[in-house]
């Protein structure tokens, strides 16, 4: 699995909704709900530029992303040219890769567990959603907004020991910090370049940096929320049509 896909899936998982902990305090829960409402929509379309910087080397990709609800996502790769019209398709719990050269490959669940996203979480975590039912949430006020702490349930099947989220007073995420089971910092996501899209504020730049200094920079261009999308769009035949047309 590629870092490109995983980053996109981070994005999709973040916008596909956050399940709330069963016994979090109401105020913390309410804050988290508002963050989700600000971040997500019923559908999404956007162009995402990715710069993946590993050991000083930069690789750039451009993706076009569509999502519908929490179950459907389609990622079309635009750049580099060699990968044009390759991409990923999420149908609920199933994940497919498509390449014009070889066709479609169904990805096994074990592949979702590989930590191959150089500066990001594993595919499995991303496809399930980082901010899932598996966490208890607590909140504190800060000068500029709120500070949320998410602790996984004791038997939760997640690799993180803790998540920390800083949000503004109008519920835009500023920073998301991931910790492992020993409390060591794994990586940090910083949100910036906030724009107004309709009645929401949206951070169009996300920089994820890990403990080794490797970074992924994600820039979202022309985001659209709550647009009308046909569920039939989300199928392998869509890729095949692009492939034939290219």
């Amino acid at each position, binding site marked *: 699995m*590629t870092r490109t896909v995983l980053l996109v899936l981070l994005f999709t998982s973040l916008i596909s909704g956050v399940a709330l902990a069963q016994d979090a305090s109401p105020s913390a829960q309410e804050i988290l709900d508002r963050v989700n409402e600000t971040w997500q929509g019923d559908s999404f379309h956007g162009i995402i530029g990715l710069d993946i910087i590993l050991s000083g080397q930069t690789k750039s990709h451009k993706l076009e992303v569509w999502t519908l609800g929490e179950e459907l996502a389609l990622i079309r790769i635009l750049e580099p040219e060699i990968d044009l019209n390759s991409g990923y398709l999420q149908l609920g719990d199933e994940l497919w890769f498509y390449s014009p050269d070889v066709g479609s490959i169904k990805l096994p669940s074990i*592949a979702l567990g590989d930590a191959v996203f*150089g500066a990001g979480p594993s595919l499995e975590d991303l496809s399930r959603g980082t901010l899932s039912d598996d966490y208890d949430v607590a909140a504190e006020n800060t000068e500029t907004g709120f500070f949320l702490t998410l602790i996984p349930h004791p038997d939760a099947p997640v690799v993180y020991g803790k998540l920390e989220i800083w949000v503004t007073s109008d519920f835009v995420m500023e920073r998301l910090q991931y910790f492992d089971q020993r409390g060591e910092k794994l990586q940090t996501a910083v949100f910036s370049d906030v724009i107004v899209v309709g009645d929401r504020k949206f951070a169009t730049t996300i920089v994820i940096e890990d403990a*080794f200094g490797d970074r992924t920079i994600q820039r979202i261009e022309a985001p659209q929320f709550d647009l009308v999308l046909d569920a039939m769009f989300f199928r392998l035949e869509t890729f095949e049509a692009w492939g034939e047309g290219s």
Partner: protein
Amino acid sequence: MKAAIRHLMRNRRRSILTLCAVLIPIYFLILMFGFTNSVIQDMFESATRFDTGHMQIRAVEPPGSGSALPLINDPSDALDILAEMEAIEWFTVRLDLPALASVDDRTRTVFLRGVVPEEIDPVSNMADRMVEGDFLSSERDGVIVGEELADLLELGVGDDMVLLSAHPDASLGAIRAPIVGIFNAHEAAIGRMIVYSNLGTARRLARSETAATAIVLRLNGVRGSQDTHVMEATADALRAQLPDSYVVQGWLELLPILSGYLDVLVPMLVIMAVVFFGLGALVVVNTLYLSVMERTREIGLILSLGSSRIRVMGMILAEAGLITAAGAFYGVVLGIGIILIIEAFGGIPLWGQMAAYMREMGITPVLHMSITAWQVLLSAGAMSIVAMMAAWFPAWKASRLEPMEAMRHVE
């Protein structure tokens, strides 16, 4: 010395017991060395014949990298250096990529190993392991898979397999390749996980015409793990010449499981040797002490006549020395003799779980034995020292006897 011999002959049973106390640990240790030498040599040959070679040149691993080997974008600079080195018997380029293998809607995580088939064929027995179809060729696209993977993906010779690269530096590489052959891997894990292709096919998946993950080397003059100094010298010479972007790793470093096994083997041998030597020493102390006690009056007489205490000690130690030398000699003869006999019959074939376990470790399930002169000397020498140290106490006790008290001693 004459008296010492006669004293030993006076009580033959006790003397033989003492002799056995020295002989048995030596004989046992020689056999253990013989066995472990063979095991290590087998492991070495299995591992280095093709899998690891004597050493490999790889790219330096960046921190925080995953389990995939880092790519060498173009190894030609290293290959040029290797071509000039006389110490190198043979080398070949390899490209290992984690990948997903897919047939229809069945997918498995695999490792694609891209090799130069004509180069590995003389040293690898892969071509002999084909059960269906053909071995690889640089002239023809295609992959070979293990029987286990073929069963899991329900494929046969002639079917197509789609491979999707999972290497972080070779993202989104995807190829379709025909199955040209199916091999028997001896180990089920290998048969499920490893897919072999020629280097060109692997490079297509990596989307690079020059990529590699390792250069595998074999050296001249290396017969076994005892030639570590030859390997280290060559590794040092390579490190001095190669750019900093490369790392040179020896066979043990490349096989941490084997290294771990060997790390346990030596302490185990030492512990067993200590136990046997300790028991032997106890017997030596006991029998010599009994001998001294029986000769209390005689020792008293000798002291009365004016012998020095050192001489009395020397008398006892001379007996111990004689019996130790005899025990060491016969222990060595017996140990080496057994080894020679076993090897004359071609070794002892193993069976059952032991044989299966040895195959898993890459060792042929036949118990061979070999021993070096140094190991024989070590076994005999160490036990001899232990025995003489054990003899010191009864000798000292003898020298401390008071002459008149000793002469009045009633047995």
